[in-house]
């Protein structure tokens, strides 16, 4: 298209070709500018031994310490993980996992004892982890209504189509609608410290501060300005799988309804089918006492969330945190590996360069 129309001017020869005596004519001489003559000042770098070899060595020298740093940091992080799915007969949660029903009113509770062999000094973060749970499935990811979650009253009453089939239940709009909300993780986890003297001390778990500030204050919002959430959600119904409506998630009005942080965390879908989500935070009380001293602990789980049907797993993770986050040796190892490979490649390239480079460098171009 572009090309064919380019010659438009020539067609009827309307350009005045002023021959000798054809009047004043503007010279058609092209302008002598650096751009038009393709002489823009430019830097013409090429890959020479002088640049490539040092680059490799420097990258090697940079990456290896970073990797070691990451690896050491990662190793210093204390992490404890316990799987409470209850697949094995021996597992305390086996019974709960076996007879599951959405409608059961009597919660099934299981108790899991565990032992921490070292004290957790700083704040401890409690995560629940799910495996083989495709929170990144496209239909699942889509199945939400961000307008509704943002507190839009219209969307509250008429949820988006994306929420189907969790948009309406018994002709009432579901709040919050969609498959994500509907499948919200609803196990309750409680942690007890078994004092050596035999008493079970409940460990206080912070329910707030676990979601992104932007999520809590921007993305999610309760409908209307009504401080009375029950009234605000009037006319809606709870998601099918929920036991309580959304306005009864927490007693604290700042953590209830759509801005309930457990809910917000759940709604931030995971990237991979194996994921962790922050559940609670155990704040450090004083600098003297470790947050979780060495010893025996008990985890009490109110087992509500079925994963056996799709061969999923449920875990609880206790972890401390460093500047780089939680325990993950991958990045450290990767950095060390890449750094070493770079160094090694640098050596190889140096040899190759010595063998071939000089020979080719001097060879002139035959014309």
């Amino acid at each position: 298209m572009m090309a064919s129309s380019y010659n438009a001017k020539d067609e009827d020869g309307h350009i005045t070709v002023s021959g000798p005596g054809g009047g004043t004519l503007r010279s058609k001489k092209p302008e002598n500018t650096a751009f038009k003559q393709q002489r823009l000042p430019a830097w013409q770098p090429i890959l020479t031994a002088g640049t490539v070899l040092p680059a490799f060595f420097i990258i090697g020298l940079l990456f290896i310490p970073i990797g070691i740093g990451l690896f050491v940091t990662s190793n210093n992080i204390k992490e404890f993980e316990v799987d409470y799915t209850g697949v094995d007969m021996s597992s305390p949660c086996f019974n709960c996992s076996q007879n599951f029903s959405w409608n059961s009113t009597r919660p099934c509770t299981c108790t899991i004892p565990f032992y921490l062999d070292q004290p957790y000094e700083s704040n401890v973060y409690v995560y629940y982890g799910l495996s083989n749970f495709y929170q990144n499935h496209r239909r699942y990811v889509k199945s939400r209504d961000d307008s509704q979650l943002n507190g839009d009253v219209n969307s509250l009453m008429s949820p988006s189509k994306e929420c189907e089939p969790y948009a309406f239940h018994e002709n009432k709009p579901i709040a919050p609608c969609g498959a994500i909300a509907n499948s919200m993780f609803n196990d309750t986890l409680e942690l007890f410290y078994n004092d050596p003297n035999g008493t079970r001390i409940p460990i206080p778990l912070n329910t707030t501060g676990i979601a992104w500030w932007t999520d809590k204050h921007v993305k999610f919002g309760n409908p209307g300005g009504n401080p009375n959430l029950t009234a605000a959600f009037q006319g809606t119904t709870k998601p099918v799988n929920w036991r309580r409506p959304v306005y009864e998630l927490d007693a604290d009005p700042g953590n209830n309804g759509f801005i309930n942080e457990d809910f917000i965390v759940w709604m931030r879908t995971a990237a991979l089918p194996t994921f962790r989500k922050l559940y609670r935070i155990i704040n450090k009380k004083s600098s003297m006492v470790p947050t979780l001293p060495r010893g025996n602990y008990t985890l009490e789980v109110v087992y509500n969330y079925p994963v056996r049907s799709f061969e999923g797993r449920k875990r609880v993770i206790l972890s401390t945190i460093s500047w780089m986050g939680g325990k993950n040796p991958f990045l450290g190892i990767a950095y060390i590996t890449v750094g070493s490979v770079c160094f090694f490649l640098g050596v190889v390239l140096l040899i190759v360069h010595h063998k071939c480079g000089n020979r080719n460098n001097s060879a002139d171009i035959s014309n």
Partner: protein
Amino acid sequence: MSRQRADSDGSLEPDDEVMPYSDDETDDELDVSSEGEPEPPVAGALHPPADARPSEMAWKVKANDRPYHHLPEFKKKVFLCIKKSRYSGNAIKTYKYNVLTFLPLNLYEQFKRVANLYFLVLLILQIIPDIATLPWYTTLIPLVVVLGVTGIKDLVDDLARHRMDKEINSRKCEVLLDGRFQESKWRNIQVGDVVRMKKNDFIPADILLLSSSNPNSLCYVETAELDGETNLKFKLGLRVTDERLQEERQLAEFNALIECEEPNNRLDKFVGTMLYEGKRYPLDLDNMLLRGCKIRNTEVSHGLVIFAGADTKIMKNGGKTRFKRTKIDELMNYMVYSIFVLLILVAAGLAIGHTYWYEAIGSKAWYLFDGKNQNSSYRGFLMFWGYIIALNTMVPISLYVSVEVIRLGQSKFINWDLQMYFLEKDTPAKARTTTLNEQLGQIEYIFSDKTGTLTQNVMQFKKCTIAGRSYGEPTTAAGLVLERGRPVDWSWNQYADRSFQFVDHSLVECIRSGKDKDANEFFKLLSLCHTVMVEHKDDGLVYQAASPDEGALVTAARNFGYVFLSRTQDTITIKEMEEERTYEMLALLDFNSDRKRMSIILKFPDGRIRLYCKGADTVIYERLSPKSKHKETTQTALDIFANATLRTLCLCYKDLSADEYEAWSKLHQEAQVAMSDRDAALDRMYEQIESNLMLIGATAIEDKLQDGVPETIAKLAKADIKIWVLTGDKKETAENIGYSCSLLTDNMQIHYGEDVNEKLKVRQARRRLEPATFRQGTKKPAEAFFPEPGKNALIITGGWLNEILYEKKKKRRRLRLRRLGKRPPPSNPQDCQPMDDSEKEMRQIDFVDMACECEAVICCRVTPKQKGNVVSLVKKYKKAVTLSIGDGANDVNMIKTADIGVGISGQEGMQAVMSSDYAFAQFRYLERLLLVHGRWSYIRMCKFLRYFFFKNFAFTLVHFWYSFFSGFSSQVAYEDWFITLYNLCYSSLPVLLVGLLDQDVNDKLSLKFPKLYLPGQQGALFNYRNFFISLFHGIFVSLVIFFIPYGAFLQTMGQDGEAPSDYQSFAIVTASSLIFTVNLQISLETSYWTFVNCFAVLGSIAIYFGIMFDIHSAGIHVIFPSVFTFTGAASNALRQPYLWLTIILTVGISLLPVICIQFLHKSIWPSVGDKVQRNRKKYEMELLQEEKKKAPAFERGRRSRRSAYAFSHSRGYADLISSGRSIRRRPAARGVFQESIREVPQTAAENI
């Protein structure tokens, strides 16, 4: 005459001297003419019966009768039952769209492109909710931008056309309406109108000249816009209209009916008749004023509009341009198809994956329950479409539009190049098409015309032979030959042209003394026998010659004292030394390329009638009288001249008796009015009188080479570009020009037609004997035709070419077949008749193979059609990229046939330029066009394409890897907006700039090292191998971009405890890694870093972050909560050092192997380009020194070697003068006697 000069048809072997057959003959025409020949010429064609008109005279125009042209019989069906007059109005319409049609038409045109259509289909697919894996805007926005860019460009072009149309259609012209001339706009002119044009007006339509203010209704026109010739042409009104239609009143009553051919595009032909007051008058091109020309030197002229608007010849000529595509274009299309196939395969694979995943996991996962009762196969099917949409970016949407932008830019650079600007003629280079630039970097064969392309087409009279004695060598008075002669001083001759140089003093003395009758006759002939027009200007005489040869000859005569002063309708006045004499011109026998001679029959003041003739030696010698003297000596001189690469013409005369002339004249007049085949009839008449000629001598004219031709050819040869010269010239001439432009060298063995034919026959015979070994001949490498070491060259004439390629025999056979009406006898394997088409094809392959083994190939005596055929042979069998360069109409065929056509602008005509793809003024610019612009364009385009495919693969395949972890649910790995903007904003500008500006080495080094051109010819920088490398590179990068973040995200959490392993953070990490990787990758590929590139790379990254933070901001979420859902994701994710470390690692792993491999490759197998780059500084210093040293040595025009040919190709003014009448009335015819003179019956007949 020792040489056999038989006609090629009769001889067994082709004659090297003759063109195989006439230029324009198509097969059909040849058949017709050869069959029609036996019929006797129709006598008495003066008044043929009305119904016996040739059927082609279907165009009827009635003067001053507008309603006539709307009669029902002239209606044609336009649409269903809507009928329209078939006579176009004079308004021209070159624009394509109007306000209403722009959108639909332009969109329709754009959607004719597969790529655009593909995205439209995608867009439609995205509307289907079940499979809409990406929201509609991911495709719509890029598509709208792409369509918009193209649309705006089309719109701008079309607006320019609108403006131009409007301007032209509103030009003023006087039209005869209601009995008087009224000013009217061009658009209101209609067929049959009588118009009045003034001096320097453009001619508004194709108009029959009726009368003008000049004597004899002569009208001067400038045809520069039609054919580029700047010399004035002359048109003549018919005698009858000249006499009767001078007054407005007379014109208003004019009511002739014109019958003529239908509108066509032949600028050189017009046939028609005028029926006026019961008489029929023939019309031809000389009576026609064609649209596009300009009236010159004529105060007022009147004309009748015959063709208007779209029917005019110039409009019929424009338009149809053959669409050429480059190899890369084709390759690119195939690659896009490959990607498309790949896309379908990948999508199908993933769909199957989904089916299994759904069976195994998805169906059991209660949380995924979607209330739809779809089984796994159906879900898989939906997922297939879902993946087609999700992975659609594998096919790069902005590829085509980017490619066009790059090509447009490169064309502009060619137009802007100062070093391809020719100051003398104020001609910059021009890329007339914008689609072929990178092909310029892949040329393997150049087919060059000679005249006007390699040579300047500037003729200088250098030598002559008169009555057996040669002149022209510089001699002293004593006759000793001097090395550097002092030019002759012309001060004795007041008319002499000062620029004319001649070194032989003896000739001047000889003439001035008047002793040598032959010498005087020689120059008298030169001053009389020509078709040159003369203008008297302030500073003396100015000759307007149709061909430079003629100009040179008349100028020579002028300087030697035989000054052509003026020409009237049938007299020629010359000044013979001191005496002015007027000769009556009885007839002027036209020159054309078949006749290769022209003659003039003059009545001397003393009553003698003499025919002067000049022409090519080949035709003249055939017609010499046996009594003619000096034949042998002249022949020797001719041979010497030809070897000195001079162009020769033989001059001769013949005395006629009055009776003889009368008899011939009568027949001649009959032939002149013949309705059918007028030209042929005239030719026969000419043939009859031009016999028994007496030879006087021969002239030799130097044809100068253009500046820098040998250097350019040498350079191009070093770049492994083979140059073939295709010329209509003589063998000897062509051979000599070959030597003079260093195409041929002394150490080459030259093979001629016979030799070639022999070798081919041998090969063919062997093939016939052992068919088995040749059966799969295409596979095994053919053995060399020239096994001996050393260079070879091929010089072959058109006749031999036909012989070798069986062209003519086939034709003759077919003719015979038609005549006899039966099958030809089965061919005998012994003779070299082809047994079947495949054998002919093998022969052609053999010939091409053989020619390609040679260093140089020169085809001489070839017709335009053969030129085209040779080009297409090489194109067909060598699969090579070809370039044709030429300047004249005879090169149009090969220019159109070759992959790239180059026209030399500012020369003979515009036809070559009009049909070319690139045009510039000098052959030597070819070097820069190919070695600099072509090479750069190719490298840029290849880099661009490789990178473009890479970047889209790296981008898209992340989804592929991700699908293994998202249940094959066609979940995409990035934010939708990122997908939308990736190709538009984040990654396109740097690569676009590389495509526009990149240079691996600068222009000077490109020219210094022609070897740098080789990769282009081999297509080494972009082919399937490179494509797959790019794909694998893309796959590798996508793997890294997915799996490094995957490893990092698997079980981690953020620095403040929040789990960062959420989808949005992951998407940001992958997207950021991708942006860094692709932008750094293009930085690695950029070898020419200007501030713009810098700006673009940094800008792209900045824009990415800018846009990302914007659409992740709180504000925009509040406004569109469900469109921008990544609220806060960027700020939350990117404040984590861990994620930055992940990004750095990802980018590092993506780039380091590439750097390593590139470095290794450049160290171990460096290409020429790498070496030049590495030592760039050194070479640049060398160049600088060379320039300093050589500066004075590079002077222009120091070469004095040259070529030879007898006559220029184009038809001269002879046609006009002989068929019409002369330029000026006799002095006696002026004033009151005008009417009476006109009625002299003897001249009246001539007019018709």
